């Protein structure tokens, strides 16, 4: 057992580093002396990037696994609730052009698919009800600015499925504090200046300025865009995907609320622009707003103007931060005894908040499948690479879907996005399938799909895509079921609107009272 995996060294202390270190430590009891030791090395000099203020509902599971109270997290990370995303002006750019990608599945989704019935209803008296509003009660909750639960719901429990918006700078400090106080992680603040290999090419240790060599059996590269271990040391190639996704820059600002009673949107708002889109994320005490754009299709000045138009007069007092976006990912993520998590593995435009969820999924995979020995690691690494290459590809497909369904013509950005040359074959194939039926779980081969079929339905039918069911009349043979689901949705909307407090009211109450632990 000389090659047993006993020490995990995480290099880098942003959210990726702390989530990964924390999950491994919590699972493998690194605070007891007999088990896996987790060391996190981070430089005091390298600033964290702080991308990703939007999360997925997976974050609840991650926080629970780390042993964190939801009340503490919300209070200390300026967090607020996110119930999906509203996409405005993506279809034709007009004022009333919007659709939702909520986090609640269509009503009765496990038992049957409502999309054919929704299509059929568009001919009758129910024409005009959007897909998401007809099959899911969450859009109405968001439109009214309501929270996904009440103060009585308790920690992590919901009435409508939710994720969070958070201040990622505060989040990584909060995670650090929790990991050090509760999870027994060894923290080394020092600069990594060299990487030392074993004869077999595995990393033996990382050399630091003051703390000497830090040895380990598994090294996790959370060094951000620098990708010090996987990129620089191992020279694993970076696969660009700017031929599919054209966004290459972001201009970000932090916008204060007009007053302390201003409503807080409980969803991410994404508003399409001539050559990109603007994100708008409401935290408890400020908004995060940013314009991502394609520099091949517009200038920085033009993009700055779009951002200023969106934010309004307040922009003159705000400092705009420019962040280059290099869309793509490493050719593989786990090489020898080194695995990359976070920006060191890759990055995509934040249209569906995929950054933090990929960190969580990677951390979960590593802690659940942590190899016992060096030999086993080869198998785990191979599977990790297969799983995550598939996930990156699926995310790229799903992001692209938003662009190819747009009918906007105001900039070549949109027509270039619809050019079949720019559309991955895997996505083209699925679009072919969906001409005659709606996306179904059968269309996806992974047992742990990042975007479920329901997400594809929300985007496709939200953007006006029509499946032609005339050749599959059997898909419409249970109107009893369908009508029941449609009226159930209407009933749930009424109940939710009566029962739920505003997002602001609930966040203020959490600050004041906190949730009961049960």
């Amino acid at each position, binding site marked *: 057992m000389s090659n047993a995996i006993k020490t995990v060294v995480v290099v880098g202390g942003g959210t990726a580093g702390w989530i990964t270190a924390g999950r491994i430590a919590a699972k493998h009891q690194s605070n007891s002396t007999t088990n896996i030791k987790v060391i996190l090395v981070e430089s005091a000099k390298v600033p964290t990037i702080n991308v990703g203020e939007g999360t997925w509902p997976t974050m609840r599971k991650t926080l629970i696994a780390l042993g964190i109270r939801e009340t503490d997290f919300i209070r200390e990370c300026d967090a607020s609730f996110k119930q999906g995303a509203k996409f405005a002006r993506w279809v034709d750019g007009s004022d009333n052009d919007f659709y939702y990608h909520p986090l609640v599945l269509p009503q009765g989704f496990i038992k049957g698919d409502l999309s054919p019935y929704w299509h059929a209803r568009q001919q009758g008296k129910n024409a005009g009800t959007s897909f998401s509003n007809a099959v899911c009660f969450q859009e109405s909750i968001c439109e009214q600015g309501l929270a996904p639960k*009440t*103060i*009585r*719901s*308790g920690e992590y429990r919901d009435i409508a499925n939710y994720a969070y918006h958070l201040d990622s700078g505060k989040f990584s400090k909060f995670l650090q504090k929790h990991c050090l106080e509760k999870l027994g992680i060894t923290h080394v603040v020092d600069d990594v200046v060299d990487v030392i290999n074993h004869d077999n090419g595995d990393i033996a240790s990382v050399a630091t300025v003051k703390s000497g060599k830090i040895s380990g059996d598994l090294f996790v590269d959370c060094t951000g865009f620098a990708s010090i271990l996987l990129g620089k040391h191992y020279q694993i190639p970076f696969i660009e995907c700017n031929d599919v996704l054209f966004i290459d820059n972001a201009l970000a600002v932090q916008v204060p609320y007009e007053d302390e009673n201003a409503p807080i949107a409980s969803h991410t708002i994404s508003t399409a622009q001539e050559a990109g889109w603007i994100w708008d994320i409401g935290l408890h005490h400020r908004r995060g707003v940013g314009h991502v754009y394609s520099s091949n299709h517009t200038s920085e000045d033009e993009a700055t103007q779009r951002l200023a138009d969106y934010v309004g007069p307040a922009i003159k007092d705000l400092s705009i931060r420019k962040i280059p976006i290099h869309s793509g990912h490493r050719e593989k993520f786990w090489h020898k005894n080194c695995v990359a998590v976070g920006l060191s593995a890759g990055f995509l435009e934040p249209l569906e908040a995929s950054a933090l969820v990929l960190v969580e999924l990677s951390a979960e995979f590593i802690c659940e499948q942590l190899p016992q020995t060096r030999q086993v690691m080869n198998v785990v690494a191979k599977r990790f690479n297969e799983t995550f290459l598939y996930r990156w590809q699926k995310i790229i497909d799903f992001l692209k879907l938003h662009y190819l369904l747009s009918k906007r013509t105001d900039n070549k950005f949109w027509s270039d996005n619809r050019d079949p040359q720019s559309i991955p074959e895997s996505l083209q194939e699925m679009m072919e399938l969906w001409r005659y039926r709606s996306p179904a779980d059968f269309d996806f081969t992974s047992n742990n799909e990042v975007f479920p079929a329901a997400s594809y339905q929300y985007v496709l039918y939200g953007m006006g895509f029509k499946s032609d069911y005339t050749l599959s009349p059997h898909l419409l043979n249970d109107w009893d079921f369908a009508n029941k689901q449609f009226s159930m949705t209407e009933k749930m909307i009424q109940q939710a609107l009566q029962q739920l407090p505003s997002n602001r009211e609930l966040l203020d*109450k959490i600050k*004041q*009272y*906190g*949730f*009961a*632990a*049960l």
Partner: protein
Amino acid sequence: MSKLVAIDNINHRNIKIDVNKIEAHGATMHLAPAVVAEFVHLATHYPIVLAKNGDTGQFVCSAMLGFQAGENLFWAQDKWQAVYVPLQVRRQPFFLGNDAVKGTAEQTPQYVVCLDVESPSVGDQGERIYHDNGAESDYLQEAKAKLAELLKGESENKVFIEMLLSMDLLESMAIEIKFVNDESTRLNGLYTIKQETLAKLSGAQLSQLHENNYLSAIYAMVISVGQMYSLIDKKNQRLSS
């Protein structure tokens, strides 16, 4: 409606409290707030449950008097039909007011006794609260003792609930009840002792509960769940009469 005013022996010297009208304050109450110290008494009549305050989301202890808002099954023929009446009802028409002056938040708050002058029990009949010479009557002394017990209970309840939560001793009650008229009701949002955990407490945990004198309260809660049957019975009698 209620209107609270601080009492003094000048303005309220001749006021009397009609003790027969006090319990009417609870006539339409379906959950009566309860303090841990009275659990053993409450358990002889009422299910003792925990519910969350709608405004703060925090747990509160209550004696269950009915199945829906406005329903007190112990109130009949203008009388409370039980020997032990919850302290929260018996304290009427007196309340504690917080006399904290702004800017002195760090000082211990000063409490003053207030009277609900709109209470039907307040008038010129019944027990006097001050003697002719301005001294407090025995009745007022007793009323003040009840208020003190409630105040003490408020902080004690908090510690009690915290301890139950930390030992994983609470669980939500899922009860579906069908009444004689075939109407059914589902009890939501009520919590009780999780007996599964209670049975597995370690010696150290048990002695911690014992030191705080919480064991009797916990078992009173467990036993009081059985009062649900008599509460259903009361409801059925009411429905069929």
